[in-house]
């Protein structure tokens, strides 16, 4: 555990240690695989949850994705980021499951169109203060999660992969099978919708306007 903490606090050393672990697992020491993926397990789960929107399904998909990653670890090439590789496998697993369950989904899952027209913000409340300390409060995290969950699927997925999973624009596009232009458009809307949902609430005890209701956008 102490070793892991050192690894996490030193990115360069972490990279080296990660490369060592990858090589060891590729040589057959599969027992080390969990140590390899542990730093990313939260991101993997979040990626699955963004797509499946169900905790149990997301956990199962994340586990299955990690098993697939283990089974295919020899195919991983050092030129890629290991975290990105894991997340892409997870996204693929989650998308596959969603396609399988499509008849039970209430959302229009094949809607890849991006909304035309300009975005018009609906709230200009001053929100210059950075409320990162607010994340210590569980209810704040819960409200943020609810705001995110209220977004349409196409915005939510792009936002999670880019802003939470820290994939770049290109990686996000590849993971979701959409164009870079679509990623940018959806990211813009996702960020501004979340901002609209949250900004006014900051002054008024946070999130009084939630949940964001689909179909009531003023733009």
């Amino acid at each position: 555990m102490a070793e892991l903490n050192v690894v996490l606090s030193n990115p360069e050393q972490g990279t080296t240690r990660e490369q060592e672990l990858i090589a060891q697992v590729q040589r057959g020491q599969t027992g080390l695989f969990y140590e390899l993926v542990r730093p990313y397990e939260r991101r993997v789960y979040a990626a699955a949850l963004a797509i499946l929107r169900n905790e149990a399904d997301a956990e199962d998909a994340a586990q299955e994705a990690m098993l697939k990653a283990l089974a295919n670890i020899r195919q991983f090439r050092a030129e890629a980021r290991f975290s990105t590789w894991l997340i892409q496998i997870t996204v693929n697993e989650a998308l596959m499951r969603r396609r399988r369950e499509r008849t039970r989904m209430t959302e229009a899952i094949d809607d890849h169109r991006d909304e035309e027209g300009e975005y018009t913000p609906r709230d200009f409340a001053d929100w210059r203060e950075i409320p990162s300390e607010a994340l210590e409060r569980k209810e704040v995290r819960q409200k943020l999660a609810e705001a995110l969950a209220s977004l349409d699927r196409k915005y939510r997925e792009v936002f999670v992969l880019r802003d939470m999973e820290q994939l770049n624009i290109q990686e996000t596009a590849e993971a979701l099978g959409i164009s870079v232009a679509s990623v940018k458009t959806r990211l813009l809307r996702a960020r501004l919708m979340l901002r609209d949902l949250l900004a006014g609430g900051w002054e008024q005890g946070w999130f009084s306007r939630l949940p964001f209701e689909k179909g009531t956008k003023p733009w």
Partner: protein
Amino acid sequence: MVVNCRQVWKEISNYIEGDVDAGLRVAMDEHFGTCTRCKSLLEGARNVVQLYGDERMIEVPTGFGRRLERRLAQGARVRRSNWSTWSAWLVPVAALALITGGLRWANSLTVPHPLQSEHAQPGRNIPPDMVVVVSAGAKDFHVPGCDVIHNKDKIRTLTAKEAIREGYVPCVRCMRKYLQIASIPPASSDPVAELSVNVEAEDRARTR
């Protein structure tokens, strides 16, 4: 370049990404300096990115890591046991194949092959140590020198016992006397028939 609010709203996400060209960036910077609404929008969007980008925002169900670790261990065991199962099966299967192959080889030494021709007769009272020849692709064994041997350049010499064991059948010409087809009239001009007669004569002399 001068940009208005709508242009700023359209590009604000790319601005945060650092994905706008230098001219547009300068113009937007100037706009943010004078427009409090757009400045507020920018700060709010940045806050969104910062808040959601915080690791604390990613919460996993209690025990998630433990369950993942367990499932990975199970998966690794299954993979190993799959290989173990294969390798466990591989040894007896290989042994069985060796034993079966060995038995077949051993049987080939003692158990006769089926007759190469189902229409042929096996022959009777053929001296086991009689030297005969067989040829590649043929079904009969012959007295050496028989005129109806096919592929004479690919003949093999062996004893009658070996030839019979390998499923070869007596030639109806040169081995005629050992068959139940004596009714076939040998042509006096047929050298094979003469050979057969000679063989019979030799046998008679031997028995006397």
